[in-house]
C-alpha cells in the first residue's frame, strides 16, 4: 500500500512527527482523540542505526532523504544558512539527530521588551510554562541536576541523575574556579540509567545517530505510545503539499503525496502543522488561496519572517596534557553565567559549552603528519588528544530581514517551489560573540593553552521564529495557545512559534509548548463538543478558543 492509502479522515491531522508533532500525537491520542500523523520522511528502524552510526563517522548523513530533490533549498543573506545537516526528515524528525541538550529558557527570556527594551515579550510567562517543562522532562527522560545558579525556579526534580562530569571537564572546572565562572552539568534527554523502556547510554560517541535508543527521540519515546492507544495512526513517506480551506477560512483537508507523487487527500476537524521552522512556513506559503493570497494564516505577512537561529563559534586551544577526547558524543559541562547579561539591550546572552570532543581525529592527524611506516603511529599518538574546546551559543534577536520565502525558480521532488532562506546576524549578535570569545580564550589561557583560536562563525540546527506567537494578530501568526490568528482550526507548533530565542537550545521549550497546546485542544475543544471519540462532532466555530 502506498503512503496513507486507506486513511481518509481524522479528528486531528498532525503534519510532522518530530519533537512537537510526536509529542502532540501522544498527548491527544492518550485523551482518546483520533489523530493521524503525516510524516514526510521514512521510518528509521532502531535496528539499522548501528549501520547509520558507522556511516556517520565516515562523513555520510544517514538521515538524508531517499527522494531526490525533496530537501532542495536556496540561500541568501550575509550568512548562508545550510540545511543539509541541520534537519532530519523521518518519523522522529529532528529529534533523530539532535544533541539532546534540554535547557529551559530563563524567566527573563520571556520578557525581553519589558526588561531590556529589545524585541518583544512572549504572550506567556516562564511561570505559566514551568509545569509543562516538568512534564516534558519526564516524557523525554532528562538527566540532570539543578546546579545552574542562573536557572529559573523549578517545581519538579529531574527524572534521571545527571551524567557525571568528564575527565576534560576537570580542566575547565579548575580554570573556571580561578576566574569565578560557575560551571555546571548539562541537562540531557538521554538515559543516564535505563528509563522509559530504553537502555542506558553506552557512550557510542555518535549522538547525531544514537544506535542504542538511549537518547530521546519521539519515534521511540512518543510515537509508539501514541499508536498503542489505538487512537493514532502514523503515515510515513507522506509529504503534505498544501492545506485547503473552505469559504469560512477554515482548513478542510490536506493534500499529500508519497514517492509515487500521486496526490491523496485527508480531511480532519483540526490541523496541526509541526514541520519545523522552515517547512511549516513554506507549507503555509504554498497553501495560498483566494482567501489567503499571501499564504495560509499570513494576513500579518509574518509567516516566514524573523527566521532565527543561534550563532555559534568554537574556541580551541592546545594543552600539554592529554585530555582524552571523543569518548562520549555529548557535552557534560557548561556555564550559564552569561545567559542573562545586564547589558542585554546592547548585546546578546551566550552559553559556554565545554566540549568533550575537540581537536583533530587520528584520521585527520595522520595524513598531514609527514610521517609514515612505524613512525606514523607514534606521531599520531603523540599529537592526538591535546586540544580543549569551548562552544559558544549566542542569542540572536529576531531580524525582519531574515526570512523563509518561496523560490519559484527552483522546485523540489514534487514540483513545488523550494524554501529560500535569507539569514544574517547583526551588531547585537556580534557583540555577544566577541565577548564570549574573549571569555573562552581567557579560560583556555588560564589552563596554559597555546595556539588559542576561534573557528569560523556557524549556527545551530535550530530554525525558529517563522510563525511567532503573540497577542496582536498584526504582529504575530499564532496566539498564546499556538492557534493561528487567521484560521480557527489550525495550530502551528514547534520552534517557529518562538518570539525570541534566548541562548538556550529550543527543544525542551518546543516540547513543553506542544504539551500545553495539546492540553488546550483537548480541554477547550472537547469541552465544547467539537472533538469526540465518536467522530461525529461538528467543526469548531471561528473564534471559539483563544
Amino acid at each position: 500500500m502506498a503512503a496513507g492509502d486507506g486513511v481518509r479522515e481524522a479528528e486531528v491531522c498532525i503534519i510532522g512527527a518530530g519533537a512537537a508533532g510526536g509529542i502532540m500525537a501522544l498527548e491527544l491520542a492518550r485523551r482518546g482523540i483520533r489523530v493521524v500523523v503525516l510524516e514526510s520522511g521514512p521510518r528509521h528502524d532502531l535496528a539499522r542505526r548501528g549501520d547509520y552510526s558507522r556511516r556517520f563517522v565516515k562523513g555520510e548523513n544517514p538521515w538524508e532523504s531517499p527522494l531526490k530533490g525533496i530537501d532542495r533549498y536556496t540561500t541568501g543573506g550575509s550568512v548562508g544558512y545550510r540545511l543539509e545537516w541541520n534537519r532530519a526528515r523521518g518519523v522522529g524528525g529532528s529529534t533523530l539527530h539532535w544533541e539532546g541538550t534540554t535547557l529551559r529558557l530563563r524567566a527573563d527570556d520571556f520578557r525581553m521588551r519589558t526588561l531590556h527594551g529589545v524585541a518583544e515579550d512572549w504572550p506567556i510567562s516562564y511561570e505559566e510554562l514551568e509545569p509543562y517543562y516538568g512534564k516534558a522532562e519526564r516524557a523525554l527522560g532528562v538527566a540532570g541536576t539543578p546546579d545552574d545558579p542562573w536557572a529559573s525556579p523549578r517545581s519538579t526534580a529531574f527524572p534521571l541523575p545527571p551524567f557525571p562530569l568528564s575527565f576534560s571537564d576537570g580542566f575547565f572546572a579548575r580554570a573556571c574556579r580561578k576566574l569565578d565562572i560557575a560551571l555546571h552539568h548539562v541537562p540531557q534527554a538521554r538515559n543516564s540509567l535505563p528509563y522509559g523502556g530504553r537502555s542506558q547510554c553506552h557512550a557510542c560517541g555518535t549522538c547525531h545517530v544514537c544506535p542504542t535508543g538511549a537518547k530521546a527521540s519521539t519515534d521511540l519515546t512518543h510515537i509508539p505510545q501514541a499508536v498503542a492507544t489505538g487512537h493514532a495512526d502514523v503515515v510515513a513517506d507522506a509529504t503534505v503539499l498544501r492545506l485547503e480551506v473552505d469559504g469560512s477560512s477554515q482548513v478542510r483537508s490536506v493534500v499529500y503525496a508519497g514517492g509515487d507523487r500521486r496526490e491523496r487527500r485527508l480531511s480532519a476537524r483540526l490541523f496541526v502543522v509541526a514541520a519545523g521552522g522552515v517547512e511549516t512556513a513554506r507549507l503555509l506559503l504554498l497553501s495560498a488561496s483566494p482567501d489567503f493570497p499571501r499564504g495560509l494564516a499570513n494576513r500579518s505577512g509574518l509567516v516566514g519572517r524573523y527566521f532565527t537561529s543561534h550563532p555559534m563559534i568554537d574556541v580551541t586551544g592546545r594543552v600539554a596534557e592529554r585530555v582524552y577526547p571523543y569518548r562520549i558524543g555529548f557535552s557534560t559541562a557548561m556555564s550559564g553565567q552569561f545567559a542573562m547579561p545586564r547589558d542585554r539591550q546592547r548585546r546578546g546572552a551566550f552559553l559556554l559549552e565545554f566540549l568533550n570532543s575537540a581537536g583533530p581525529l587520528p584520521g585527520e592527524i595522520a595524513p598531514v603528519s609527514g610521517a609514515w611506516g612505524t613512525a606514523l603511529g607514534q606521531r599520531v599518538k603523540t599529537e592526538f588528544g591535546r586540544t580543549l574546546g569551548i562552544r559558544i551559543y549566542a542569542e540572536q534577536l529576531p531580524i525582519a530581514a531574515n526570512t523563509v520565502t518561496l523560490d519559484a525558480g527552483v522546485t523540489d521532488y514534487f514540483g513545488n517551489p523550494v524554501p529560500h532562506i535569507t539569514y544574517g546576524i547583526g551588531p547585537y549578535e556580534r557583540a555577544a560573540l566577541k565577548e564570549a570569545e574573549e571569555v573562552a580564550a581567557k579560560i583556555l589561557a588560564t589552563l596554559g593553552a597555546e595556539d588559542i583560536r576561534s573557528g569560523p562563525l556557524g549556527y545551530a540546527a535550530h530554525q525558529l521564529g517563522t510563525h511567532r506567537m503573540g497577542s496582536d494578530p498584526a504582529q504575530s501568526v499564532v496566539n498564546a495557545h499556538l492557534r493561528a490568528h487567521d484560521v480557527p482550526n489550525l495550530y502551528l507548533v514547534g520552534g517557529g512559534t518562538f518570539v525570541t530565542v534566548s541562548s538556550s537550545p529550543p527543544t525542551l521549550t518546543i516540547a513543553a509548548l506542544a504539551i500545553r497546546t495539546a492540553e488546550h485542544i483537548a480541554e477547550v475543544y472537547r469541552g465544547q463538543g467539537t472533538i469526540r471519540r465518536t467522530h461525529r462532532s461538528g467543526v469548531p466555530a471561528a473564534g471559539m478558543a483563544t
Partner: protein
Amino acid sequence: MRAGGRSRPAVIVYSLIVTRRRILQLLIGATGSALVLLLFWRPQRLAHLVSRRFKPRLDATAPGVLSKREMQTIVAFTAVLVEGRELNTHEAGYVVEHVTDKAGKTPGYLSLYQKTAALLDRLAGAPFSSLPLEQRIGLMMRHRFTDSDVRIRECLRPWGRETLAVRALAVPDLIGGYYLSPAGWAAVGYEAFPSRCGDLTRYTSAEA
C-alpha cells in the same frame, strides 16, 4: 598643439601604442611585475595560486569497483605507508573497506586508485603486492611515495605527473582512511570510539 611646433602624425602615435608587440610587452611586463610583487610581499599567496593551478587534482570519472589485483596492490602499498609492515587481516580489511567505499561512491577515486595500482605494478616490473616488504619499501622510498608533502617546484615540472598524483592524492587519502578506522583509534589506545559503544563511565577518567 603649440603654435609653430611640429606635431607627430597621429597615425605614428597610434601605432606606437597599439601594436600587438607593444600590447604583448605590456602584458608580460605587468604579469611579471605582479608576480615579483607577490613573490616578495605575499609569497604564501603566490604559492597558493601556483599550487592551486598546477597541483594534481581528481578527475571526474564515475565511481566503480577495483579489480582484485588492483585492490591487492593498493593494500600492499598502504601497508607500507601506515605501518611499515604487513597488515593483519583486520587491518587489511579496514583498507579494503575504505577503498571500496571511496571508489564506489566518490567520483574520481576509482580512477585514482587504478592509476596508482598501474603505476606501482609498472615500476615494480611485477605485481607490486608480490614483492617482499623490503623491496616494496625500497621502491616507495626511491620514488618518494612516502612523502605526500608536494612542493611547488614539483608541481611546475612537466615530468613525473603520475608519481606526483599518487603522492599528492592517493597517499594522504589512504593514510587518512586507515587512521579513521578502528586501527587509527587503536594507535591512540582507544578500544571504544565513535561508532563503537563501550563503558559509559570510561569518559570520566584518564585512559589506563
